[in-house]
């Protein structure tokens, strides 16, 4: 029997587009309307069929897999729980409970995307807004070190550059779009102004913009840009009605890291003396913002949290996964809804092959090849409901469009917590 479900949320990226139409036939997804290519693939390539967990490559019943996972975690002196960005906030909450019980380190994929943003936020605060405000009010949009036409494909049409809003009825014609990046991108090609900068000069440019906004002319040169370009941009920043800077990993992964973002947040806060101005990180995975939120509610810190001393402690460079794995300080890992084997530097990823590893994710995501325990779960937003945070930290309820044939991450985590407490 076929049916069409309207207003489904796509949880692929931080946009959480909530206008997707999903057509199913005999409990299979056969057609998707309005999703971007990334979202379309997420729905159409998803295999919801029942599959059993694996322990050391052998199919087992769920009880045996839960016991094996609990055994690995209980025996470890320094376990790591990592991932969380593509699971629900309900599961994230249970993962923190498990970390607290084990005395583990818990770290989300923020660790290798916007953790420097969280550090900047803690240092100087963040002037921010919702995507609804961007759509309805923002007449100047700056995309710094990000490429939304590749990574967040419907961001332009739903929330920013091309969206028609309450005070911007003509959409793109009513807005000015500036891109700051080290290379031409799909996004820079549709910008009104493209400021192409040299790698590793973001901090100097942001500092210079702060000086220019306050009427002071820098007495130094920055490789790759001239002062007239920065004067023009500074004037635009001061004279717009409502400006927003969206920024990505061009800032967080380059030299300076959190200092780059601190300078950006400070610039944006200072611009509020002249007009309304906001900053917003382009969050990648569908619920990576939720991971920061949930960890902060429960521990006081957004990521890289250690419960080893019985109280939550944050440690950039100390309790962050790449550092701990590369330093061989982890003796068991529980990977949830992510894949560090392909996304971490080789020296860190290779340590995962040497320690007992549990990997829990919807099967279509692909598993860490050498995991000792593989737990194939349902996919939130396709065959399980759950809460996810949009990139502007607005929580949305994901719906289920298929019958669930595998347990959810939250259900499995509850069972593992019970089993660990019995060990």
């Amino acid at each position, binding site marked *: 029997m076929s049916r069409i479900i309207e207003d489904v949320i796509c949880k*692929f990226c931080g946009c959480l587009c909530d206008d997707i139409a999903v057509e199913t036939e005999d409990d299979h997804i056969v057609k998707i309307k309005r999703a971007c*290519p*990334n979202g379309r*693939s*997420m729905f159409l*390539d998803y295999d919801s069929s029942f599959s059993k967990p694996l322990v050391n490559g052998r199919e087992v019943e769920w009880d045996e897999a839960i016991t094996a996972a609990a055994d690995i975690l209980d025996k470890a002196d320094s376990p790591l729980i990592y991932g969380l960005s593509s699971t629900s906030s309900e599961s994230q909450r249970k993962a923190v409970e498990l970390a607290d019980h084990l005395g583990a380190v818990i770290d989300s994929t923020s*660790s*290798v995307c916007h*953790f*420097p943003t969280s*550090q900047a936020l803690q240092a100087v605060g963040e002037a921010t807004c919702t995507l609804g405000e961007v759509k309805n009010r923002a007449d100047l949009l700056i995309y710094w070190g990000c*490429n939304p036409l*590749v*990574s967040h*494909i419907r961001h332009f049409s739903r929330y920013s550059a091309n969206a028609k809003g309450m005070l911007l009825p003509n959409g793109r014609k009513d807005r000015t779009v500036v891109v700051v990046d*080290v*290379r*031409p991108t799909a996004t820079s090609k549709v910008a009104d102004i493209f400021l*192409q900068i*040299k*790698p*590793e000069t973001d901090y100097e440019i942001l500092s210079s913009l702060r000086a220019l906004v306050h009427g002071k002319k820098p007495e130094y040169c920055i490789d790759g840009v001239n002062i007239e370009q920065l004067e023009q941009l500074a004037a635009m920043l001061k004279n717009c009605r409502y400006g927003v800077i969206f920024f990505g*990993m*061009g800032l*967080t*992964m*380059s*030299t300076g*890291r*959190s200092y780059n973002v601190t300078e950006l947040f400070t610039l944006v806060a200072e611009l509020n003396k002249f007009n309304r101005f906001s900053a917003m990180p382009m969050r*990648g995975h569908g619920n990576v913002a939720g991971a920061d939120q949930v960890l902060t509610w429960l521990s006081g810190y957004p*990521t*890289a949290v250690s419960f080893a001393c019985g109280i939550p402690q944050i440690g*950039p*460079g*100390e309790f*962050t*996964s*790449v*550092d701990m*794995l*590369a330093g061989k300080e982890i003796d068991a890992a529980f990977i949830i809804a992510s*894949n560090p*084997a*392909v*996304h*971490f*530097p*080789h*020296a*860190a*990823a290779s340590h995962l092959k040497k320690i007992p590893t549990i990997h829990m994710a919807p099967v*279509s*995501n*692909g598993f860490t*090849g050498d995991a000792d325990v593989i737990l194939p779960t349902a996919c939130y937003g396709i065959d399980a409901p759950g809460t996810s945070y949009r990139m502007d930290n607005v929580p949305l309820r994901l719906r289920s469009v298929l019958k669930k044939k595998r347990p959810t991450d939250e259900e499995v985590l509850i069972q593992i917590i019970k089993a660990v407490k019995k060990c």
Partner: protein
Amino acid sequence: MKKFFTLITGRTKKQAHGLHKGIGSPDYIAATSYVEICPDDIASLGIIEGQKVKLLSEAGSVELAVHSADIPIGLLFIPMGPAANQLVGPETFGTGMPSFKGMQIKVSPL
């Protein structure tokens, strides 16, 4: 002395599409296993588009096919994934974040 290039890793549409097919799928491997270099650097290296080169950083090395692209002289782009991560070192300078952008790379024709 060989010239150093600056490596930028990042997302592409094909890399994201490949992830849905699975990390062992031909789509994902093809989408993450090439390096973009600008035409001037391709000429100065004495290579042609499609040719394989050896990329070397302080963290490791990898051999990838060259794609010509509109990027600045001296810059390399590799889609995020296991090939790029052979070159990215684990040093985070106390931040937790490795240098996914900004690694210094030597390029040798094969």
